[in-house]
């Protein structure tokens, strides 16, 4: 039982943070808003150069073979800067779905492997559309799209589909409604296999959201602390008011108790993404709660300034409001946990916090735990 990150993981996190601080400062995000694509190829190339598009791809498929625990701190950093580019969905969901497809469809193995090598190298982008998300973020940037027809998984080239842009409240998000015609040629797996793959993709997508929301929450809190310490009213810093302190202390508490939940979800996904439903749903709910509270309280602490376009806070707040509902909203995820808690076969109690794989004593039947429930 060991619940800390390794030095390597922390070093990677810090390198990424340093890079992002330069590449994705608020003024550069505002710059992207006025471009047609909203996508900065230079920043993306730097992410590629740091290995982020390759890291979760297994070594035998041309990647670095790292896992969700290695990635979760990086996704958190992407949240902290409100990175517009869809790195997290791309690396954590789309590439991983490609890997899964390579593993379960031998006819696709060679083409898929080639595609993964291009993805790792940053020469090709792949996006995954999931039925839980009505729109696909940055679909126009993808060369290939993994899409569902029923539960089947199809691979479609961008020029084979129609994209209808849909403006989001977050100008960094570039949503598209995707219309396309499925064919036998585009189908990679049938519905039976696909159902499991989409379920795993959902868990990965929600985990990525949770990690980003955790980062967004911390970034907003940091900004509000700074603003309230600098800004004076009635002759003293507004942050010296107990009411302001307590608004932000409440944010700190929620963030503090979302962290381990998100990291547990990353670990659980890394060892068994199909058995991570509850761990991931818990992470999504906890991180979203923290981010929504920070959006509210940090806006409040900023006063009228917090309600303006020119104050950077809304860059984080709007992303939080959007990600709260992406990859399954609060209701969806709480409901997954509720259904599990009501399952009479669920194993409940402190000794199962980390799942039944930890049990050391006789349990005659094969009961459900948070990690094995459907």
């Amino acid at each position, binding site marked *: 039982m060991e619940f800390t990150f390794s030095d390597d993981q922390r070093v990677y996190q810090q390198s990424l943070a340093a890079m992002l601080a330069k590449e994705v400062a608020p003024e550069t995000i505002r710059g992207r808003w006025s471009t047609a694509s909203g996508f900065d190829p230079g920043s993306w190339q730097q992410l590629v150069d740091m290995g982020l598009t390759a890291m979760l791809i297994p070594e035998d498929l041309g990647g670095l073979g790292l896992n969700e625990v290695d990635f979760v701190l990086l996704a958190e950093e992407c949240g902290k800067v409100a990175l517009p580019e869809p790195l997290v969905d791309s690396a954590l969901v789309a590439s991983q779905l490609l890997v899964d497809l390579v593993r379960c469809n031998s006819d696709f193995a060679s083409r898929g492997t080639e595609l993964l090598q291009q993805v790792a190298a940053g020469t090709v982008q792949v996006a995954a559309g999931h039925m839980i998300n009505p729109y696909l973020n940055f679909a126009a940037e993808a060369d290939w799209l993994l899409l569902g027809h029923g539960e089947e998984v199809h691979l479609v080239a961008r020029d084979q589909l129609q994209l209808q842009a849909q*403006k989001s409240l977050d100008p960094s998000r570039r949503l598209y409604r995707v219309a396309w015609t499925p064919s036998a040629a585009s189908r990679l797996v049938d519905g039976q296999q696909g159902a499991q793959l989409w379920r795993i993709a959902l868990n990965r997508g929600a985990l990525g959201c949770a990690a980003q929301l955790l980062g967004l929450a911390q970034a907003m809190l940091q900004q509000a602390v700074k603003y309230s310490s600098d800004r004076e*009213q009635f002759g003293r810093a507004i942050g010296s008011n107990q009411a302001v302190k307590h608004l932000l202390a409440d944010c700190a508490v929620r963030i503090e108790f979302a962290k381990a939940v998100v990291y547990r979800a990353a670990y659980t996904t890394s060892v068994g993404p199909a058995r991570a439903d509850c761990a991931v749903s818990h992470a999504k709910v906890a991180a979203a709660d923290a981010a929504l509270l920070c959006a509210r309280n940090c806006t409040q602490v900023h*006063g009228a300034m917090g*309600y303006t376009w020119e104050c950077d806070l809304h860059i984080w707040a709007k992303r939080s409001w959007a990600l709260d509902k992406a990859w399954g909203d609060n209701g969806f995820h*709480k409901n997954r946990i509720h259904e599990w808690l009501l399952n009479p076969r669920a194993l409940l109690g402190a000794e199962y916090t980390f799942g039944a794989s930890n049990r050391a004593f006789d349990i005659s039947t094969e009961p459900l735990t948070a990690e094995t429930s459907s």
Partner: protein
Amino acid sequence: MELVYTPQQNAFRAEVRQWLADNVPDQPLQSFDTREGFEQHRQWEQTLARGNWGMVTWPEAYGGRGCNLIEWLIFEEEYYRAQAPLRVNQNGIFLLGPTLMEYGSDAQKARFISKMASGEEMWAQGWSEPGAGSDMAAIRSKAIREGDEYVINGQKIWSTRAVFADWVFCIFRTDPDSSRHKGLSFIFVPLDAEGVTVRPIEQLNGLPGFAEIFFDNVRVPVFNRLGAEGEGWNIAMSTAGFERGLMLRSPARFQQSAKLLLQLYRQKRNDILDLSIEDSVVRCYMDAEAYALSTYQTASRLMSGGSIGPESSCNKIFWSELDLQIFTTAMSLLGARAELLPEAEDASDDLGNWLDGFLFAQSGPIYAGTNEIQRNIIAERMLGMPRK
């Protein structure tokens, strides 16, 4: 206690309903935070004024109908029920108007009230300054008397509607040696005066709902001062009192939102998994009704000679938190599509104005005195807790 409308009140409601049915524009107007939308709303104000519906509680001499508060509440209920346009002239008719009637000279009333009522002159409000937001007594902008004029230098911020309005009412420091609440005066400035620069400030939705105003040797006649020199603070407090009194206008707004929320809930509830959504919807409806009931009670008390006290700070907290709750619940009901802007192609009818209302609701606990300041007021003035 007799919680039944009189036949006269029912007749009044019917009259309002009919007039609104005949006159409310079929299509929603554009946002009044755009140039075009502002002019559309100005026209609507003029339509209202022509029917003497602009400010029903004002005396008939000023274009009103001399209505009492209950009738005003009925008017507002019908107004929101008809989904009539938002009031772009709110600063004028709800805040400055009553202040003018109380403190203005006859000549000032004659000059300003009817043009305000007719929508010909639209007003912005100019109180806050950088460094003097919630702490209004920290005002530094100066209006120095020279003969029959004041010469104004300084800066205002968070001035609502100032981007497209015609006039702004402000408080300035007329005694440069004074400090805090003393030496301030209440002065009107035309926004097209020489030396005035208006810098729009965009809100969360990207539209300039307020502005920063710079005054560089702006000259206005002494006639533009309301009340005596140095009395600005007291008059502004009285205006702020009217602002708090806006609660008398508000319940119908929240009841209408709660009703729309309920309709949304009825449509979506079978698709919604959220375990807490039913509770939220019911609470929103109850709280909107509680707010209305409390307002009717206050109106009755005022009509019996009572006054509004520090308990009005309770109102500010209650309605602003209710508003957040209503729109946050709506966003939950809309799920992943809630983030679409109204102009998005897929933002079909069901998305309505929920997103814009959600963004606007974020400002409720902030403007007109933050809720933290309101809680201080409740604790100290209503409950009598120690200041230090």
